[in-house]
């Protein structure tokens, strides 16, 4: 995310915002991510945010990452090589990743972080294929546990950059069922309450209208206008009468992010 005019980056802004969404005792699922900007969105921002929450208001918040339950966020791996992950200290490293799947299915998580190639008006997510599923324009990675996240985790947080190709009217393939076709449609197919809680982007934060379950603008980042948001979306979100500005990180949050959690800008690099 580009630097803002004010003295924090957009990455820092959304990291602080997400950290305030984390409650004490929350167990958050963080994916293993890929590289570059995708890594920042899927791994860098979430890990930094949870660590920030631990250091401010939620000391008992914790993370499931890879197959590590409660890895030590005070000493994160310095690189993405296997051995750095292998030796990352944690409270538990269960015998297989089925343990994590079961914890998801029995709703043992509170929060999860998801990114994707497409997200639509009702928060359905696509990480599988763009175009026709049988002969796609772009074949993506598949599914991972993202369907589980939306099916079972009470407060999924979607982290993506605002982009017209990403924010589409209807995803080409529903990997993860969000609020499906809105209204009660999610419950009607048998899923429990839940679905995506907020959508965090580089320009604005969204949530979902309680009745229609359509994506709703929750706040605009400092310096971002409505038109800039609309220009970068393939559909028009619900816009409340008053749209507040995304609250800025405070000095202590910025200090912790910059000096303690990510001093070498590994997590929030790009």
């Amino acid at each position, binding site marked *: 995310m580009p630097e803002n005019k004010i003295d924090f980056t957009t990455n820092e802004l959304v990291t602080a915002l997400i950290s305030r969404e984390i409650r004490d005792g929350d167990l958050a699922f963080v994916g293993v991510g890929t590289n570059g900007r995708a890594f920042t969105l899927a791994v860098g921002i979430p890990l930094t945010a949870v660590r920030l929450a631990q250091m401010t208001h939620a000391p008992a918040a914790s993370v499931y990452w890879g197959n590590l339950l409660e890895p030590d966020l005070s000493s994160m791996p310095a690189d993405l090589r296997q051995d750095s992950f292998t030796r990352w200290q944690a409270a538990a490293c269960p015998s297989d990743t089925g343990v994590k799947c079961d914890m998801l299915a029995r709703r043992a998580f509170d929060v999860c972080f998801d990114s994707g190639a497409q997200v639509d008006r009702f928060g359905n997510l696509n990480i599988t294929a763009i175009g026709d599923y049988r002969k796609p324009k772009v074949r993506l990675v598949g599914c991972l546990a993202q369907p589980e996240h939306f099916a079972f985790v009470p407060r999924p947080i979607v982290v993506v950059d605002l982009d017209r190709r990403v924010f589409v009217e209807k995803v080409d393939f529903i*990997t993860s069922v969000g609020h499906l076709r809105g209204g009660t449609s999610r419950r009607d197919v048998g899923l429990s309450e839940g679905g995506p809680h907020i959508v965090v982007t580089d320009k604005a934060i969204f949530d979902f209208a309680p009745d229609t379950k359509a994506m709703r603008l929750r706040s605009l980042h400092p310096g971002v206008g409505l038109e800039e948001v609309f220009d970068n979306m393939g559909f028009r979100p619900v816009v409340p009468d008053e749209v507040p500005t995304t609250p800025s990180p405070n000095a202590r949050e910025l200090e912790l992010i910059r000096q303690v959690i990510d001093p070498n800008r590994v997590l929030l690099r790009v």
Partner: protein
Amino acid sequence: MKEKLKNLEEALAPISSGNTLTIGGSLLRRQPNAAVRSLIRRGVTDLTVLTWAATTATDMLAAAGALRRYEGIYTGMFSYGLAPNFRRAVEQGAIEVRDFSETAMVARFRATTQGLEFMPIKTLLGSDIARHNPEQIRPFPCPYTGEPLQAVAAAKSDFTIIHGYVGDKYGNVQWPIVRDSDDIDQMMASAAKRLIVTVEKIIPHEEIMKRPTLTYIPGNWVEAIVEVPYGAHPVSCDGHYDEDDAHLTDYLARSKTAEGANAYLDEYARRPAGHDDYIAMVGGLSALRTLDVQP
């Protein structure tokens, strides 16, 4: 106990074109790449492959045109991006793809492990994963609550290939205490019909017997075990060696075109007479040892 030690070609000999294979490993860890190169060398094709988080093994099979059908949770190159050959083949419509979420794939291997034809899940209600796969994801009501559930079909394959850490000649395979467990190799092994395991090292049975709790694949489940040092190269075997960044970067660069990928396979899979030749090709044991990590 029965001796199950074979060489790689003997162990893989029963696998033929048209078979269904379960392939172990996850992301850049313990992909049974030596075994896959051997299958490519022999020209085995028309395969159906079941995987967890697949990278090199599946992508090389796709590059070789050996994949007819794929069922899994992920195929990519982890921190290196998308899987170029798999992606190209799928986009050409050359591979029949069935996607599953993690819970669903776990349920499929557990079903087979438990001698059942299905396991119940409720993960995929409303998703296009289920909509595109009515044969393997079927709605049914909970016998207690009547709520909608989905029955995912048991994972059935002719052969299962796993790359493990160390084992004995009877096929007992052990994991180290410090390891990366983000995979389902043990589950795949328990669900296997015919299980072929390659390991970094064969160790004496007496060593295995001292710490039987570390045996994650009992020899009783195994058809053949093969010593294949650096058998996961160019990806890692956690606790043994790291991924080979230079080799992976080269693989991805050459995989930008089908021709490039094919030339890569000629060089590293088809032309070498076997795994020893492959090791020589990539610089010999001395070069590979630079990837070693502290045990």
